[in-house]
C-alpha cells in the first residue's frame, strides 16, 4: 500500500470520505513525516501536531455521525507563518514578532479550518515575505528537498513561500498556503517541482495576513497538482467584508469545470520575456510548453507586453514604499520585541527595537521605501512607478483582447545553491522578473512543473490569465501537467 503521505489533497479527502482510512490516521502520518523531516529541512517555524489531530478527530466524528464533510475534510496542511493563527505563534519569520500569539484567526485560515483542514504547523518564509530564497528568515534557511544530480549542495526552495514549497515537495504536508506579492508562490513552486496559484487580487481576503505590500499581497494555494490547487483555492477564496479590497464575487467551482481541452483558446507568448542570455534549459522548457498547449488544441500567438522591462524596478519602488508604512506598527509597544536600552526615550526605543527586530533585507526595503516616499522624491519615484504600473496593466489588457492566457517561464533559472545570490540584492531581485508583472496588474497566475533541467532540478511554466479568470489559468495548467507527466520527486535524504 502507498503511504498516506504520498497522497495529495483530493485523494486524502476522498479517501477519508470513502472510509479508506481515517482523518486521524492521515494526521498521524503527516505529523510523523513532519517530525522526521523538519530538522533537516527547517520548513516549519512551529509544528502543531495537536491541532492537526484535533481537526482530524472532528472530521472522523462528523463522518461517523453522517454529517456532511467540508471541502478539505481530513486534509492536513501547512500555513505560511504570515497568516495569523489564533493561539499559535505567528512571526512573519521575524524576530520583531518573536513570541507573538494572535488572539484572532486570519480569514483565509478560518475558511480552511471550516472546510475541515488541520494545521500541521506554521511554515518558514523569507522575513515579512521579503526574499526569493528563504534566506532572510530569522528562523534560519529552509533547505530545499531537491538536490542537483550528483551534487549535495544545499539549494534554495525559492521564496518567500519557501517553507511551503519545501514541505509540499517533500510530501510532509498535503498542501500549503502561500502568499504572493511579486512571485512568492510561483517562484518557489517552480523551484521545488510543485504547483502554485495566485488568484486575482482580491479573491482571497488579506484580513489577518501580515502585510508586506498591500496593493500586491495575495494569498494562494501550493499543492502537488493543478486539481489540488483548484480545490484548495476554492476553500481559501471568497468575499470578506473585513477587507475593503476583497472582491464581492462568488467563488466558482473551478475543479468541476477543469478541462485540458484548449480548443478555441488562444495562448500568448510575450516576446519581451525572451531575455538576452535566457538560460537554455528554461528556454527549451518554454518551447516545450508551447508545443504542449498546441497539442491541447490552443492557438498560440506572439504578443507584446512593451513595458515588461520596467516591471521589476516599478515593483521595487511600490512594494518597499508600502512596506515601509505597513511595517511601522512594529514598534515594541503592543506586541513582539521591545528593546529598551537604559535611559532610552520613546523614539530611542523604537529605533533600537526595530534595529534589533528586523533583518537586513527588511531594513533595506524599509529604507528604500522611506526614501522614495520622502519629501522631494515622492513624485519622481512613487508616482512615476504607479504610472508605469498603470502602463504595465494596460499592456496586459490590450494583450487579453487577443489571447485568453499567457505562457512564460516562471523563473529565470532552476533552484540555486543557498548563499549563491545573497550577497547582491539586485541579483536576487531578478529572480522575480517573470512573475512580477502579473502581480503589478493583479492578475491570476500559476506555476506548474514542466520537467527537470540538465542538473536534475525542476523547472516551472507560468500561466497568466485575465482578471477573475482563474479557470483558464487552471485549464492551461492542467494541459501542461497532463503532457509533462511530471512524476519526479526529491529523493529522501533527510
Amino acid at each position: 500500500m502507498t503511504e498516506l503521505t504520498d497522497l495529495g489533497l483530493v485523494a486524502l479527502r476522498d479517501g477519508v470520505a470513502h472510509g479508506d482510512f481515517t482523518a486521524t490516521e492521515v494526521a498521524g502520518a503527516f505529523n510523523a513525516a513532519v517530525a522526521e523531516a523538519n530538522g533537516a529541512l527547517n520548513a516549519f517555524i512551529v509544528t502543531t501536531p495537536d491541532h492537526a489531530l484535533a481537526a482530524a478527530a472532528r472530521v472522523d466524528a462528523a463522518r461517523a455521525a453522517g454529517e456532511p464533510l467540508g471541502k478539505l475534510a481530513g486534509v492536513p496542511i501547512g500555513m505560511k507563518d504570515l497568516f495569523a493563527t489564533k493561539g499559535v505563534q505567528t512571526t512573519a519569520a521575524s524576530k520583531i514578532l518573536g513570541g507573538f500569539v494572535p488572539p484572532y484567526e486570519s480569514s483565509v485560515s478560518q475558511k480552511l479550518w471550516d472546510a475541515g483542514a488541520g494545521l500541521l504547523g506554521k511554515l518558514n518564509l523569507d522575513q515579512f515575505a521579503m526574499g526569493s530564497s528563504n534566506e532572510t528568515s530569522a528562523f534560519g534557511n529552509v533547505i530545499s528537498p531537491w538536490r542537483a544530480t550528483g551534487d549535495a549542495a544545499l539549494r534554495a526552495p525559492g521564496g518567500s513561500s519557501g517553507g511551503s514549497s519545501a514541505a509540499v515537495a517533500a510530501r510532509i504536508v498535503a498542501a500549503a498556503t502561500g502568499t504572493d506579492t511579486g512571485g512568492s508562490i510561483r517562484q518557489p513552486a517552480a523551484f521545488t517541482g510543485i504547483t502554485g496559484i495566485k488568484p486575482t487580487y482580491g479573491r482571497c481576503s488579506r484580513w489577518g495576513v501580515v502585510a508586506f505590500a498591500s496593493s500586491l499581497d495575495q494569498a494562494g494555494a501550493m499543492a502537488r497538482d493543478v486539481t489540488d490547487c483548484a480545490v484548495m483555492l476554492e476553500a481559501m477564496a471568497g468575499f470578506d467584508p473585513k477587507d475593503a479590497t476583497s472582491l464581492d464575487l462568488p467563488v466558482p467551482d473551478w475543479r468541476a469545470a477543469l478541462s485540458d481541452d484548449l480548443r478555441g483558446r488562444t495562448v500568448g507568448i510575450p516576446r519581451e520575456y525572451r531575455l538576452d542570455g535566457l538560460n537554455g534549459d528554461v528556454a527549451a522548457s518554454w518551447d516545450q510548453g508551447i508545443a504542449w498547449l498546441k497539442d491541447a488544441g490552443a492557438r498560440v500567438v506572439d504578443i507584446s507586453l512593451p513595458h515588461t522591462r520596467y516591471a521589476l524596478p516599478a515593483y521595487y519602488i511600490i512594494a518597499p514604499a508600502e512596506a515601509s508604512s505597513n511595517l511601522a506598527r512594529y514598534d515594541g509597544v503592543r506586541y513582539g520585541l521591545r528593546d529598551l536600552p537604559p535611559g532610552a526615550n520613546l523614539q530611542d526605543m523604537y529605533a533600537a527595537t526595530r534595529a534589533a527586530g528586523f533583518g537586513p533585507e527588511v531594513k533595506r526595503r524599509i529604507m528604500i521605501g522611506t526614501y522614495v516616499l520622502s519629501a522631494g522624491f515622492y513624485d519622481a519615484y512613487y508616482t512615476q512607478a504607479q504610472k508605469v504600473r498603470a502602463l504595465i496593466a494596460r499592456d496586459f489588457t490590450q494583450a487579453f483582447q487577443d489571447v485568453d492566457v499567457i505562457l512564460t517561464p516562471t523563473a529565470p533559472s532552476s533552484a540555486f545553491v543557498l548563499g549563491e545570490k545573497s550577497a547582491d540584492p539586485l541579483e536576487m531581485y531578478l529572480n522575480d522578473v517573470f512573475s512580477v508583472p502579473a502581480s503589478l496588474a493583479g492578475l491570476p497566475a500559476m506555476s506548474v512543473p514542466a520537467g527537470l533541467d540538465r542538473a536534475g532540478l525542476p523547472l516551472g511554466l507560468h500561466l497568466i490569465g485575465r482578471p477573475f479568470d482563474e479557470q483558464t489559468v487552471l485549464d492551461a495548467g492542467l494541459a501542461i501537467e497532463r503532457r509533462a507527466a511530471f512524476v519526479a520527486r526529491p529523493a529522501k535524504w533527510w
Partner: protein
Amino acid sequence: MTVAPADVARIAALARIKVDESEIAALVPELNGILAWVDQLGEVDVTGVAPMTAVIANQLRLRADVVGADPLTGGGIRDAVLANAPAAEHGFFGVPKVIE
C-alpha cells in the same frame, strides 16, 4: 539619484531604525545600486497616464455604523488587545515616559 552617508542616516532616523557608522557605510553602496537601477523608470513616457489607484477595477465599499457588528472588528476585548504587550499595566500599554 544617489545617497550619501548623511542621507542614509536621515532615512534611517525617519524610519526609526538605529544604524551605526559601519552599517551606514555598508548601506550607502547597496542603496545606491538599487536606486541607480530603479532610476531607469524615468525613461518611460508617462504623459497622460494616471497613476494606478486600484489594481482590479473596484470601488470602496462602506460599512454600516454598528458597534461590534462583527466581534472580530469590534471593541470590548481589552485582555486580548493587551495580551501580547511587552509592558501592560492597569489596562494601559506602558511606554517610556514622554515629555510633550
